[in-house]
């Protein structure tokens, strides 16, 4: 069992979590440090062009062409990078009304997104509208708790996907929000929503035990937290109720966080929950460092956010 201690460095405005336990390294073989970078967006809502200089809150922010150059430079620094989106790609500017999401998918493909999950607004042109745009996406859609088997999307959405980056196996699974009351039945058709916690438990078991992933990421469109709806599932609740997830990348609530949130999971381990607002204003970047030698006895992780 891993023990992770938490030290808050308020003066620096950052949090540092450091490892507990002793480093009883019995192997002295040359160790290689491996760095995996996870980049993420959520709720971009068809915001392709940057906000204009006259926009009150978001003046001169966002823009896909700028995001592209940022991602390019990060990839140059670390080729072992994954780029993920947590849903609600569609709806928000006339680009969506005119092209139905074609441009959004084409651009995400050019930016080499690795995977995206499905948000409620991605149903806005109906499940058929989403299906129509799939040929424009070179990345995959992952959702574990939407059962599409009675819909046109059947077999086009996978519950999870694994990636191998420099010998590190990364498993990413997707979770979507309850559609009832949010997405018109005419649009979602026979899409079934399954319980996110149960599905997350299945997914982590498969990814940890069967797929032997070193890193497990949940790509969620459940929403960060619902203060007034205490029973409603959210990323914070999911983090507490599950184990073996390392990072939850969220969406839906358009939550701007100062820094990723550290949450204790069911096993008492610290995990990260992050969300980067909306409209492509921010890019989230989480770096995971692995050390083959240290790992053999690793019983702690330092989290710097």
């Amino acid at each position, binding site marked *: 069992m891993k023990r992770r201690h938490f030290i808050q460095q308020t003066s620096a405005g950052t949090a540092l979590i450091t490892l507990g336990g002793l480093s009883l390294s019995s192997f002295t073989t040359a160790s290689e440090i491996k760095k995996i970078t996870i980049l993420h967006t959520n709720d971009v809502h068809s915001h392709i062009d940057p906000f204009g200089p006259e926009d009150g809150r978001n003046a001169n922010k966002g823009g896909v062409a700028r995001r592209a*150059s940022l991602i390019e430079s990060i990839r140059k620094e670390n080729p072992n990078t994954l780029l993920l989106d947590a849903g609600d790609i569609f709806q928000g500017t006339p680009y969506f009304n*005119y092209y139905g999401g074609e441009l959004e998918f084409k651009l995400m493909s*050019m930016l080499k997104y690795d995977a995206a999950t499905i948000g409620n607004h991605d149903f806005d042109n109906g499940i058929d509208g989403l299906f129509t745009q799939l040929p424009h996406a070179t990345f995959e859609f992952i959702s574990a708790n939407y059962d599409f088997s009675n819909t046109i999307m059947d077999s086009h959405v996978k519950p999870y996907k694994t990636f191998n980056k420099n010998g590190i196996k990364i498993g990413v699974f997707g979770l979507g929000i309850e559609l009832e009351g949010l997405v018109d039945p005419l649009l979602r058709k026979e899409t079934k929503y399954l319980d996110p916690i149960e599905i997350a438990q299945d997914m982590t078991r498969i990814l940890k035990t069967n797929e032997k992933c*070193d*890193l497990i990421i949940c790509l969620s469109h459940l929403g960060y937290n619902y203060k007034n709806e205490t029973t409603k599932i959210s990323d914070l609740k999911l983090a507490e109720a599950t184990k073996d997830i390392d990072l939850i990348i969220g969406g839906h609530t358009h939550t701007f966080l100062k820094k990723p949130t550290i949450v204790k999971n069911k096993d008492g381990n610290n995990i990260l929950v992050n969300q980067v607002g909306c409209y492509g204003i921010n890019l989230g*970047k989480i770096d995971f*460092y*692995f050390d083959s030698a240290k790992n053999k006895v690793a019983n702690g992780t*330092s989290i710097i956010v």
Partner: protein
Amino acid sequence: MVCANVTKLHSKLFDLYMRFTQFIFLLNIFIFFSCKPHNLHPYKIEGQQITINDSLKTNTEIDNFIKPYRDHVVKDLDSILAYSAHTYSKSEGDFNTAIGNFMADAVYDQAYPVFKARTGKDIDMVILNHGGIRSIISKGNITTRTAFELMPFENTLVVVALKGTQIDSLISYLCKTKKAHPISKLKLSMDKDFNVIDASIKDKKIDDSKTYYVTTNDYLYNGGDNMTFFKPNDSVYDLNYKIRNVLIDYFKKVDTISPVIDDRFIQIKK
């Protein structure tokens, strides 16, 4: 010669290096298989958020790819559909506004034939909400952009079958909120204490036992702006007609709009 020697030396070193890495590789495999399969754990995690702003370079390949789409959208949004005689704002008018009257009447005109064709029934009245008017209409050319600004949301029209008694609840809502919620075909006057003096639909007194077909949008139907009087109801019809498209279609149909504040919802102070 020197070059050749160096190359030789390099290739020898490389050979040695390859053997060494192969050894490490084999060692790793050995360790991997000799121990029980082991998931690696990160020893350090760093998280940060990077704001996309104008300090970042614009990727020209991406920008050039967007350009034809952008040009088309901009050209279409700026295409002229109609002309506005004046500038209209939702803040001009007490209980009815010119811009609100325009919107409610446009909804009636566009929705009426659709509903008639589908059900054989007549729409009796329209109610929208004051907050749903999202911008002004400026004097001069009306473009597709005007429709997007007036109605940026995707709300669609629904027709709700309400009994006359429920129309009474709708009317008391209007009197209580004292707001210029856009209405069409309903006529309403209040006294100085906001009590109903007179109410009619299509110039006829409201009949408690009659069923009225009221057009509104899906947001209000579902209780938006506290309009709770739509439920329960006899039946509801989704027209699958977005309000924005109603406006675009209406603008295309007419040459000039010149709505006025009228007597459809007034207060008589004596």
